[in-house]
């Protein structure tokens, strides 16, 4: 038996065969795969999604400018990926558990992150801010792909508990090349773990276009491991919501893992340290501006008459409020005391670190009286 190239072997960047329900012009189109997952969605709910995205975009703007002002060490913009993040995350239950990467500002917003949670880590005060168990969301992962295995293990635990939660992991097109991500699919498949893989293919891994990782759709890899997958327009919040409902339903009902590739675009730099002019054309960015995830919902909701002036004002006000609160949280964040550098290295007493802690305390004590 010869296996030909993957039957849907369009280059990974091609936009054909990507499921959509809302066109860039804000027109709701029929989609046999997704429509059934959207039947119950009311215009007010779509408005709520739009509101989420607007707030997330505002947080992102705030984070960016805080970094530029020297208040944060770094910021990884989610600009352009609001639909992929909000749409998928809004399909989850509180009791599901999410394993995001560093770029998922929109996801942690939906999960219930507090103002300071968006900035504490980027400010360098802590390596994480929120309590993972409070919002059932792991610390944003920096090692590309490592979190996908954690999600699978967590999902194996869900199975062992006979629970019907799902675990969800977010990662990028670049991360899909990591051994860990592939092993995660293999483990998930073998153990029929209730886990959903969400790959945000934002076309770039820092300066590398997605074709360096794959000439073919990343979504096409999952089925080879026995995992059904869906490739959706990641700038279409309804498509993302629907796809995620499909995926979580699949996983929650004991059918094992599911995979979503959300085709989107990183409209900003990789991080505030990056200079995308060195590797990508303004024209490409422009073409994606035409597919902005907020614009199309705005048009759609205006046409429906749901995005009234009042609603718009309320959203703007709330976005501003959250933006200001995030800024305030950054600016008023207390500095941690020097000796806290030792805290939590171990959960139980470790004589080695304890001795170092004493020695360092003695060292610091010298300076109190101005000595040494």
């Amino acid at each position, binding site marked *: 038996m010869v296996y030909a190239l993957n039957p849907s072997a369009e280059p990974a960047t091609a936009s054909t065969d990507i499921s959509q329900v809302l066109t860039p012009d804000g027109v709701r189109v029929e989609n046999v795969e997704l429509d059934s997952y959207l039947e119950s969605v009311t215009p007010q709910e779509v408005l709520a999604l739009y509101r989420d995205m607007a707030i997330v975009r505002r947080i992102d703007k705030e984070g960016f400018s805080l970094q530029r002002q020297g208040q944060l060490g770094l910021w990884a913009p989610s600009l352009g990926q609001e639909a992929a993040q909000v749409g998928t995350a809004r399909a989850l239950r509180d009791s599901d558990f999410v394993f995001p990467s560093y770029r998922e500002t929109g996801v942690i917003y939906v999960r219930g992150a507090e103002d300071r949670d968006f900035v504490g880590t980027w400010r360098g005060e802590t390596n994480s801010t929120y309590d993972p168990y409070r919002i059932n969301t792991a610390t944003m992962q920096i090692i590309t792909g490592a979190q996908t*295995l954690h999600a699978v*293990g967590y999902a*194996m635990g869900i199975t062992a508990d006979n629970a019907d939660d799902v675990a969800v992991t977010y990662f990028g097109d670049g991360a899909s090349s990591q051994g860990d991500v592939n092993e995660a699919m293999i483990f998930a498949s073998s153990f029929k773990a209730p886990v959903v893989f969400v790959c945000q293919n934002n076309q770039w891994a820092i300066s590398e276009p997605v074709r360096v990782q794959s000439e073919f759709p990343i979504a096409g890899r999952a089925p080879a491991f026995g995992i059904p997958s869906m490739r959706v327009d990641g700038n279409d919040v309804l498509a993302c919501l629907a796809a995620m409902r499909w995926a979580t339903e699949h996983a929650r009902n004991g059918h094992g893992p599911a995979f979503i590739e959300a085709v989107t675009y990183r409209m900003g730099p990789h991080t505030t340290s990056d200079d995308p002019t060195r590797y990508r054309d303004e024209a490409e960015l422009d073409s994606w501006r035409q597919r902005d995830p907020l614009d199309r919902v705005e048009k759609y909701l205006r046409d429906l008459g749901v995005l009234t002036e009042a609603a718009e004002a309320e959203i703007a006000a709330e976005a501003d409020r959250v933006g200001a609160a995030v800024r305030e949280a950054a600016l008023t964040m207390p500095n941690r005391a020097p000796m806290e550098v030792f805290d*939590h290295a171990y959960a139980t007493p470790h*004589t080695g670190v304890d001795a170092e802690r004493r020695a360092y305390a003695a060292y610091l004590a010298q300076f109190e009286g101005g000595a040494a």
Partner: protein
Amino acid sequence: MTTMTMGKALNQALRQAMTDDDKVVLMGEDIGPLGGVFRITDALQDEFGERRVIDTPLAESGIVGTAVGLAMRGYRPVVEIQFDGFVYPAFDQIVCQVAKLHYRTLGRVKMPITIRIPWAGGVGAAEHHSESPEAYFVHTAGLRVIAVSNPQDAYTMLQQAIACDDPVIFLEPKRLYHAKGEVDLDAHHTDAAPMGLARVAREGSDVTVVTYGAQVKTALDAAEAASDEGVSIEVIDLRSLSPIDYPTIDASVRKTGRVVVTHEASREAGVAAEVIASITERCFDWLETAPVRVTGHDIPYPPSKLEKQHIPDLDRILDGVDRALGRRNSMTGVEL
């Protein structure tokens, strides 16, 4: 007290830990029907089922990475790495995740993972089956590292490791799997000496020999041989390599003034370097001679027919003891 092999003691410890706490799950390659290539998990899948004794796909990063997720869900995974040389594909998950998650999350996420590693050489194995990677883990903050040397410690300390809320690298010397000893199966691990303490394996007054794992036996044999020649050696079994129990070592070195540290791992930046640097810091005024290292060479682990040239044996330890005593030894007249 029951006489049993270290392998059996480990098996009993796993059984006990799984009985005591149903959050304990075992993961690894071939640990199910086969019972592991060393049979340490023998019969446990039959007893506890496939959900608690999990034969995994052949991918060590996958095993440790999924163990992290299970730990986050409240489980206490006990991972078996099939041989020491196969832990490296999991190194990233161990160093960046297992070791750091508690620190990263300000103590909110615990990582009670035990990573069992059949460890080190001397069994005539093929390449990659005789590695001594302990220094990597000792240097990794956030991990605890245990190396056992006898069935009783194996039984007690494996249970302690599993019960510990910190991640533990648990090193099991392969060449002692079949060595027998007395084990008190009834004693509870919480009543035993805590996991972080060293043990004076033999008292002596002239020279302190510090070691761990399978080298404890070699050191004890050396001590016996030395006593025939009137040299009294104190042997310290470290048991815990992170943290290291310096008070116990200090007491011995301050008594003898002379020390040899021996292990099978390579010398450069190995555990012996750590022990000697610390002893020198802590006991400088008590030292009569320079602390001596007797270790494996700084070479990749050799083919099995040459491994006896690599693993320090009784004679090499005694040569080191002679050096510590300022007696004639192989280095006499040789430039370092």
